[in-house]
């Protein structure tokens, strides 16, 4: 049992490339899942009661089945009609998964904004849509920052699962390097540390964001 970290240094550029892809995917998925989740929540709470049932069904479906199964469905399902790169499938799969989780949180926080806010805004001359987007959504959004932050931390860790459908992110890059160097323990330890560091930064960012918005609550 001796460790040899020289292959890790040799393949460090490969790992960095993988890390870059992981961060890129995470950023796109974060934007997609937060904005999409908010949109789904707003539609299902305020705008259209008929449309809200299928939306709730999708939230429920994505929350009760595992991410990997959803990724396989998308990967093979879309692959039947068109050939698109795995990274797009990965972003869509992870995006929809966390969109459902975020929408669930936004639905709860939108409902927690008191009715008086809506009535006051309407009596001050705001329209229905203006009230939703200028008065209710901002308040709900700030209230949901802690939980959305938790979801995003989970999401960054779940980008590792995308290697299963062949997205060239950090785990995939290290699997390639391992297949050449036969040093699984060293590589996986190093990428675990990388994920841990990202995680620490995200937790700090979450604390900072919560402090920044605390006075508005």
């Amino acid at each position, binding site marked *: 049992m001796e460790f040899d970290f020289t292959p890790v240094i040799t393949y460090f550029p490969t790992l960095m490339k993988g890390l870059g892809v992981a961060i890129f995917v995470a950023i796109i998925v974060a934007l997609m899942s937060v904005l999409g989740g908010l949109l789904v929540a707003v539609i299902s709470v305020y705008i259209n009661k008929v449309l809200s049932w299928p939306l709730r069904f999708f939230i429920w479906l994505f929350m*009760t089945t*595992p991410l990997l199964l959803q990724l396989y469905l998308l990967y093979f399902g879309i692959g039947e009609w068109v050939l698109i790169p795995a990274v797009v499938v990965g972003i869509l799969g992870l995006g929809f998964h966390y969109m459902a989780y975020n929408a669930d949180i936004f639905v709860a926080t939108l409902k927690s904004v008191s009715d008086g806010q809506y009535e006051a805004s309407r009596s001050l001359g705001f329209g229905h849509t203006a009230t939703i987007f200028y008065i209710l959504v901002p308040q709900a959004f700030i209230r949901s920052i802690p939980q959305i932050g938790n979801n995003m931390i989970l999401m960054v860790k779940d980008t*590792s699962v995308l290697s299963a459908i062949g997205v060239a992110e950090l785990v995939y890059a290290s699997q390639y390097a391992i297949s050449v160097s036969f040093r699984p323990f060293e590589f996986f330890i190093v990428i675990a540390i990388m994920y841990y560091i990202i995680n*620490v930064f995200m937790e700090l960012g979450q604390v900072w964001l919560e402090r920044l918005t605390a006075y508005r609550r």
Partner: protein
Amino acid sequence: MDFNLMVDVTPLLLKAAWVTIDVSARSLFFGFFVACGLVFMQSLRFAPVRWLARGYVSAIRGTPYFVQLLLVFYGGPSIGFRLDPLTCGVFVGAFNIGAYMSEAIRGSIESVDSGQAEASRSLGFGKAQTLISIVLPQAAPLMIRSLGVLAIVVVKNSSLISIISVVELTYQAQRLIGSTYKPLEIFTISALMYIVIVYAVMGIIELAYRRATRYTTL
């Protein structure tokens, strides 16, 4: 939708679903003991043991379960730690969820007002007896709820052990999709099975919750 195919694959998927249930149940069982150990370590007065437990929880929660699984399964043999896929899945699953569970248990114990423990101690109860007959019954409802959420996480996490070739529900589904090219049909059946498992777990949690709160009036 090809219903004949759906009927044909159901027995295979049911068999695989049983593996999912088996692995999840074992991970939860052993994970609970890991969690109790961690909670105990964090309650000790000897600081290094507390730091060790805190560091462990932080490391587990800060890294993906997927990477932990790969590290133990592929990296383990090079430090002389060789496990077969199923055992490895249960092992990593238990040690992973144990860290999350220890936080849930600690949080629910700390949610009980400290005056309860003080009052009990001043009435002559011992430390262990205070914990068992005064604090834990009051912490139970919250503990059951938060452990229940983790139980569902365990069921969904168990899909990841398909990567180390354990033939569980997701592995079987992926293999069948690959051989039949009917993703939607296979997905429908396997998703249905996951949903049934998740709802069964939720039902058990609800029963336990009702039992824990049967004497409380709110």
